[in-house]
């Protein structure tokens, strides 16, 4: 066990945990933010995606010690009122079905749009390919990313 400082959504949490515990379980079970999901545990599905220092990472495959003192953003940190343009686009396109994969999808989309404000279909394919949606919401995810891109470029 070790004392580890996590900076999640701009808030510091000092936790006492096994340093090898994946960041995912630290976020869910200790910090108590349940929006980040467990889907496979082996970096294959993307449900656990959060941002670490602005980069999308698979929290199931990072030991919590590797995230110590780094700035982490989870779905809850995007906005709790769905005001982030990607969240808004997701609602307009009515993307979610069961919704379980969507935190990860949204975090990946936000990271993509931060890098490329007007992504092409190929950019979307490349960025979103590691993200499984068993409900098959892919066509709507693509449309929502394009819509969010428009919202962000108009604004910005």
């Amino acid at each position, binding site marked *: 066990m070790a004392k580890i400082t996590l900076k999640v959504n701009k808030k510091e949490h000092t936790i006492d945990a096994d340093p090898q515990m994946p960041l995912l379980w630290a976020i869910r079970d200790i910090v108590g933010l349940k929006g980040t999901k467990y889907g496979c545990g082996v970096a294959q599905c993307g449900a656990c995606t959060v941002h670490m220092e602005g980069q999308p990472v698979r929290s199931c495959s990072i030991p919590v010690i590797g995230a110590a003192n780094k700035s982490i953003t989870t779905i809850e940190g995007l906005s709790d009122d769905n005001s982030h343009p990607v969240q808004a686009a*997701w609602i307009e396109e009515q993307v979610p079905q069961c919704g379980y994969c969507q935190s990860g999808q949204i975090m990946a989309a936000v990271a993509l749009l931060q890098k490329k404000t007007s992504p092409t279909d190929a950019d979307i394919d490349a960025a979103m390919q590691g993200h499984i949606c068993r409900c098959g919401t892919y066509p709507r995810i693509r449309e929502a990313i394009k819509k969010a891109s428009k919202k962000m470029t108009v604004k910005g």
Partner: protein
Amino acid sequence: MEPKDISRRKFIRATGLSATALTLGFYFSGESKASTIIKGEDAENYGVSLNSWIHIDTNGKVTIVSHRAEMGQGAYQAIPQMIAEELEVNLDEVNIIFGKGDTVKYGNQITGGSSTVRGTYKNLSKLSASAREMLITAAANKWNVPAAECYAEAGHVIHRPSGKKMHYGELVVDASKLEAPKNVQLKKIEDYKLVRKPLPRQDTPLKTNGTAVFGIDKTLPGMLYAMVERNPRLRGKVKSYDDTAALKVPGVKKVFKVTMKVFDTDREGIAVVAESTWAAMQGRKALKVVWDDTGFDYVNTEDIYKKMKAELQSKEGLSAKKQGDPDPILAQQKTKLDVVYETPYQAHACMEPLNCIAHHKGDSIEIWGPIQAPDWVQGDISQKMGVKKENVIVNMTFLGGGFGRKAFLDYTHEACLISKEAGAPVQVIWTREDDMTQGPFRPGVSYRAEGAVNNGEISAIKFRLCGQNIGHWMGSKKDVPNDSVLEGFQPHYFDSIKNISFSDVPFETPIPIMWWRSVYASTNGFAYESFMDELAIAAGKDPLAFRKQHLKSDRCQKLLDKVEEVSGWKNRKPKQGYGIAITECFSSTVAQVVKVSKDATGKIKIDKVWAVIDCGWYVNPDTVRAQVEGSIVMALGAATNHEIHFKDGLTVEKNFNTYRMPKINEIPPIEVFIMDNNEDAGGVGEPGLPPFTPALTNAIYDLTGKRIRKLPFDLAKV
């Protein structure tokens, strides 16, 4: 974390609603203007009940119960949307809460068979209209005017001549004392304000900011976490185990053997109960278990398919349906078709792995989880745990997918056993590997199809199905045919095909099996509609025209006309890679046209899918479209990406690296059309799945001349 501390205003912004919606377990009180949150447990005490679904408090706040599981298919929206229509309230001003398992209150709650709307809409519409009439009568009595002079709108009753107006809250107490009228006038489709409108789903905003509470997200005070190391052979047992190292893992509290029921057989495993998910996982890893596989059948996929093929050649099977007699016709024909189609076993692979919280309190048990059939769980747990039914409380959370798996009763039973032994509320979490390897699976099914055409028409068809029968696991008799043999087959084919038979060649393995989205239609559809294509080609006919010729019903004709029109079928040329299929299940018919081409590397590329669904009466066209889109993606995965294999009684695929799901770059553009008519409601969640695969393989035949009869196949290697 449930949004306990979220302010009302913020919550309203968050959900995009002008009033309140809820996440499971908590919702906002209508009585108080402040952000008081009432525990979900008390939710049904909320306001005055006009019936099991409709509760109105004295401020006029309406609460509607959604008694079916929300697993992505939109029940959370559809049920309130149809209730609000007849009740005359604005949907964005009502609370929606999940119903607990309760057959007395809600009747059948199993969310399966695409039944949420088609199984309830008549009853719920009537109940809601009668609640509305009771409110109108209460107002008329108060004003001392004839009820006929009053009408309801947006949560108010209005007296037309005087313009007097009262909100439902002022009337509900009186209304609840009235007798519910027996014969109520339902609205006409053209007067609908909510139904048939593509209204945004009320659960969407909860799923874009992480606040929707799925089973895995629920926590209780003092809750422990458990993982179970189960025998990896599908029905093996535990011989012995050593928990010394496991108990040394920090956070591990208890280790014990647990035996849950998988249908009527036992599945044994060792449970590790700990303070966190991670500690339970680590403790589990440290276990040393010796398994007992005596009497276990070491099944192998190859042997299964070899055996099914042999059975189909040598056995007639149990006759499931026969019209005329195809045998003598087939015997006379020199040029007849006689082919075998094979479909694989599949895992449900819901995005949210199985999990369940149980709190065994001695003479009562409370359960929370992603559950498709809360009423079944209630009955099952009562019986297996020896606790009175009314003392078993089953709470539904949002489900991260269900597809049939979460209608099964093993994981809830196991959680109860573990909580009992641990003496605390426990959340049992299955890893992805547990979820994928333990089954139950969709059965792999093989088919033999024989047929002949004469003068451009089908003269005889003989279908034989060979595969495990789900019914046998639920106790149905083994000498009666599988009643699902006809699933997927458009029944109007019987109007024109005079000599046709279906039989079931019984086949048993120790592999536990269960419903999987669209059940047998998911494999039948491939066999039957591939064969229709083969017959069309044998008859020298256009495949779409051939279906029209054999499906004479008005609804089928209209559906086929529509898919012909939207897909541009008429202007296409043969060998351009167009394929069609039409199937029926759960009272809805769906036709799809798929267009394929070859890319520079020779790989088959799916250019486009057009789908037309005739589901009769429906609630939300956007949900209908979403369900058909999702069904197509799921079918695409099962046809071209993934399959469950067995080797020596072990499941080979364990996670998404080998059970490879389709990804965003593999998905073609999909266009969905809905037929508008006044027919009875059909299902929506499943019927879009079966026609996709045969439409795809028929398109591949059109392009390449290659007939695909075995699933899954690799689009890069056709």
